C-alpha cells in the first residue's frame, strides 16, 4: 500500500520541481567560502547571546515569583496479598475487638508512596502507607529531615547523616531492611514483638566510612506498631538505640554485613484511677433472682500511680552473600537478640504487673538462593520466647513452661524487572493452645500466602 502511494507521488514531485526551476530568479555570484562561514558563525553567536539573555531574564522572573524549591523524586511500591489458607481462620468475630477472625482473604498489605528531596547538605523524605491489614488505613510510615556531610559522597571522607523525625530504629539487620527488598513476607517474630512497626520518632546520627557503619539514636521508644501508646511517649526519658556494623567484600564475590546492636530505655506501667463504692449482684445459687445475700458491696479504691521500669536489648546480626555464577547470589542470614522487658508488640512486657522481669530471647537463621535473575527460593526459621522464666500452675505444681513462638517460612519467588510474585508457606508454632493434658500447645496457624509486588 505504502509502495503504491510512493509511486503515485513521484509524478507530482517531478512536476513541482520543474515548476520551481522555471520560476527561479537569477542567482548572484556566491561569496567566498570563508566569508560565508564567518557570517554564519557571527549570526549563530548573536543568536546564542539572545538566548542567554532570555534565559537569564526568565530565571530572574522565576526567582522573583517563588523561592527555589528542592527537586522531588517520587517512588513507591505495592504489596498485595492473597492469603490462600490460614489455619487460624474462623468465620467468627473476636469477642473483645469485634474484628473478624477469618484470615483467608485478599489484602493490601502495603501500598507506599515516597517523596524524597535533597539539595546540598539537606535532604528529607515523606512516605505514606495505605493498607487493609486491620481495615482501611492510611498513615505516615517515614517522615524525616536530615543534614549530611559531605554534600556529595566522597569515598575518602566519612559520610555523616543527622536525622530527625519518624524513622527506622537503628537496631539489627531485619529492622533496617526495606519491606520491598526483604525476600520473606514479614520480619521474624522477635522483631514484630520487640520493634513492632520498625519506625519510631526521634533523632539519629549515622556514619559510614569504608567498611564501618555506625548509627545511634535517641527515640521515644513507642514505635508505630506498639500495642500500647503507639507513636506516643508516656515517659520523658528517651530510649537510646544504636548499631555498630561492618559492610564489606571479604573477597571478590563474597560480601559480609554484620553488626551488634543495643537498646536501653524506660518502659511504662499505667496507673489506675480511683474507683467508687459499688454494689454487685452475684447470682450465687444460679436461680436468676436477686436475693439479699447475693448483693455484694465492693469498696472503692484509691488511684494507683503509674510506674516506670528499665528495659534493654542487645543483638547481633550477620549476612553473608556469595555470588555463585551463573545461578545467582546465595545469601545466608542470622540474627539473635536478648532483651529484658522490651516486648511491645506480642506479649507486652510489664514487669510491674508480672511481678518479675521478663527475659526475652529471639533468634533467626535464613538462607536464600537466586535462581538466575528470574527466581529465588529461600527458607527462614525464627524463634522467640517472650518470657524465659514463664511458669504455670499445673495441678499441685508450679512448673516452668515454654512460651516460644517459632516459624519456618518456605519461600519461592518469581521476578521480572521490578515485579515479584512470591509464594510463602509459614509453619507456625506457638503456646496459645491448650492440649488434652492441659499443657500449652500450638494453636494451628500455618498459612499459605501469595504476594504480588511492584516497585515503581
Amino acid at each position: 500500500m505504502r509502495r503504491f502511494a510512493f509511486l503515485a507521488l513521484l509524478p507530482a514531485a517531478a512536476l513541482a520541481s520543474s515548476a520551481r526551476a522555471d520560476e527561479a530568479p537569477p542567482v548572484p555570484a556566491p561569496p567566498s567560502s570563508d566569508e560565508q562561514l564567518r557570517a554564519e558563525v557571527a549570526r549563530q553567536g548573536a543568536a546564542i547571546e539572545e538566548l542567554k539573555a532570555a534565559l537569564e531574564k526568565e530565571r530572574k522572573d522565576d526567582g522573583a515569583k517563588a523561592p527555589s524549591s528542592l527537586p522531588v523524586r517520587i517512588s513507591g511500591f505495592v504489596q498485595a496479598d492473597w492469603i490462600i489458607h490460614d489455619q487460624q481462620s474462623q468465620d467468627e468475630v473476636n469477642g473483645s475487638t469485634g474484628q473478624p477472625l477469618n484470615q483467608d482473604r485478599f489484602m493490601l498489605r502495603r501500598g507506599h508512596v515516597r517523596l524524597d528531596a535533597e539539595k546540598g547538605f539537606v535532604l528529607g523524605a515523606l512516605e505514606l502507607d495505605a493498607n487493609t491489614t486491620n481495615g482501611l488505613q492510611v498513615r505516615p510510615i517515614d517522615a524525616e529531615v536530615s543534614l549530611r556531610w559531605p554534600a556529595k559522597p566522597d569515598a575518602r571522607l566519612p559520610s555523616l547523616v543527622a536525622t530527625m523525625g519518624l524513622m527506622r530504629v537503628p537496631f539489627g539487620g531485619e529492622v533496617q531492611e526495606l519491606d520491598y527488598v526483604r525476600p520473606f513476607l514479614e520480619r521474624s517474630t522477635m522483631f514484630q514483638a520487640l520493634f513492632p512497626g520498625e519506625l519510631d520518632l526521634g533523632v539519629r546520627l549515622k556514619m559510614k566510612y569504608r567498611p564501618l557503619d555506625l548509627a545511634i539514636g535517641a527515640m521515644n521508644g513507642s514505635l508505630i506498631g506498639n500495642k500500647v501508646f503507639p507513636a506516643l511517649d508516656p515517659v520523658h526519658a528517651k530510649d537510646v538505640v544504636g548499631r555498630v556494623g561492618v559492610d564489606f567484600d571479604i573477597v571478590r564475590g563474597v560480601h559480609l554485613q554484620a553488626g551488634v546492636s543495643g537498646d536501653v530505655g524506660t518502659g511504662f506501667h499505667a496507673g489506675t484511677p480511683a474507683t467508687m463504692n459499688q454494689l454487685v449482684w452475684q447470682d450465687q445459687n444460679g436461680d436468676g433472682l436477686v436475693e439479699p445475700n447475693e448483693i455484694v458491696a465492693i469498696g472503692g479504691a484509691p488511684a494507683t500511680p503509674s510506674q516506670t521500669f528499665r528495659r534493654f536489648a542487645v543483638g547481633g546480626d550477620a549476612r553473608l552473600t556469595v555470588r555463585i555464577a551463573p545461578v545467582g547470589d546465595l545469601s545466608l542470614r542470622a540474627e539473635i537478640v536478648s532483651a529484658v522487658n522490651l516486648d511491645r508488640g506480642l506479649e507486652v512486657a510489664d514487669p510491674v504487673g508480672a511481678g518479675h522481669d521478663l527475659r526475652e530471647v529471639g533468634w533467626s537463621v535464613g538462607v536464600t538462593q537466586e535462581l538466575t535473575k528470574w527466581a529465588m527460593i529461600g527458607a527462614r526459621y525464627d524463634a522467640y520466647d517472650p518470657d524465659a522464666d514463664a511458669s504455670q500452675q499445673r495441678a499441685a505444681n508450679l512448673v516452668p513452661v515454654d512460651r516460644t513462638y517459632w516459624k519456618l517460612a518456605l519461600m519461592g519467588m518469581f521476578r521480572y524487572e521490578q515485579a515479584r510474585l512470591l509464594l510463602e508457606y509459614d509453619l507456625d508454632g506457638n503456646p496459645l493452645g491448650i492440649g488434652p493434658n492441659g499443657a500449652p500447645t500450638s494453636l494451628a496457624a500455618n498459612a499459605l500466602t501469595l504476594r504480588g509486588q511492584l516497585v515503581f
Partner: protein
Amino acid sequence: MRALVLPSVAVLSCTIAASCSDGVRADAGADAYMQISGAQFVRGPMPEGSPSGPAVTQLDLIDNSIWPGLANDHVGGALEPSAMAAAIGMQGDLGYWIVGAGVPDVATPNDPSFSATAAFSRGIVVGSYTLVVRAVDQNGTFGPPKAQILVAEPSPTNPPATGELVVTLTWDTDSNLGLHVVDPSGVDIYWGNPSSQPPFSFNQADGGSYGYIDYDSNASCVIDGLRREDAIWSHPPPPGTYTVRVDAPSLCGRPIAYWTVRALLHGVEVAHASGVAVDADTRGSHGLGSGVLALQLTVP
C-alpha cells in the same frame, strides 16, 4: 544442583507433614450449647475414657438447673492426683472443653481441682441434658466419665410473657428497637407511654383491661442483652383492631437489625410479622406514632 534440591524437597515435605498434624485448632466454640471462657474448645465427641485413666473424684455444680442465656455458671470439682486437666462437655453438643487442673482444694488436699465458668447458648431448648466430665492425665489419656443431669428450663430472668393478649417484639442485634401497639381506642403504648391505663380513672367499668409495655430493652443503647419487648394485656383485651409498629431509636452502631413480631391471643399465635431496621429508620421522631407498620390484628 540436584544434590541440593532433592534433600531440600524431602526435608520440606517431612516438615509440612509433621507440622500439619501438630497443634489444636483455633475454634471459639460460639455455636456450642455450652461455652467455657478461657478454655480450649475441641470440636467433635469427647474421646472414650480408659479405665486406667484418672477419675473425677468430685463434681460441684450450684444446681442442675440451666436455661437459655445463662452465664457465669460454676462447674468445678476435684480430680485424681495423676490428672492434669479436665474435659467438660454436654452429651450431644458440638464439642467439649479442656480446662487445666489447678491446686488442690482444702477439702480435697490430695486431688487437683478444676474450675470453670460456663455459659449456655440462647438456642438451648427446654429439656434434659447430660453434663460429662473426664479427667485427663499427662499423656492425654481420658479417664472414666462423671455425669450429671442438667435440666434446661425457661429463663427466670427472661420468661415468656403471659397474658390474654401478648404482642412480642424480638430482634437479633444489640440495637435499641421499640415496640408500639395502638389499641382500639387509639392509645399508642410504647416506651414513652408504657401503659394504656389513664393516670387516674374514676370509671373501671371496662374491667381494667389495659395494656402495658413490660421492658424497654437496650434503652439509650445501654445494652442489656434482652433484645425483647412485650405489650401485655393481662385481662381480656378490648375488642377491635390493634396496630403494631416497630420503631428504631438507634441501631447502637450496628449496621442492621432483623426483627420479629408475634401476637398471641389466649396463648395462641394469631399474627406474625418480620422485617429489618436500617439506619434510615433511626431518623426522625421516635415518640408517639412513630415506627414502621408491622401488623394489624383484630380482637373479636
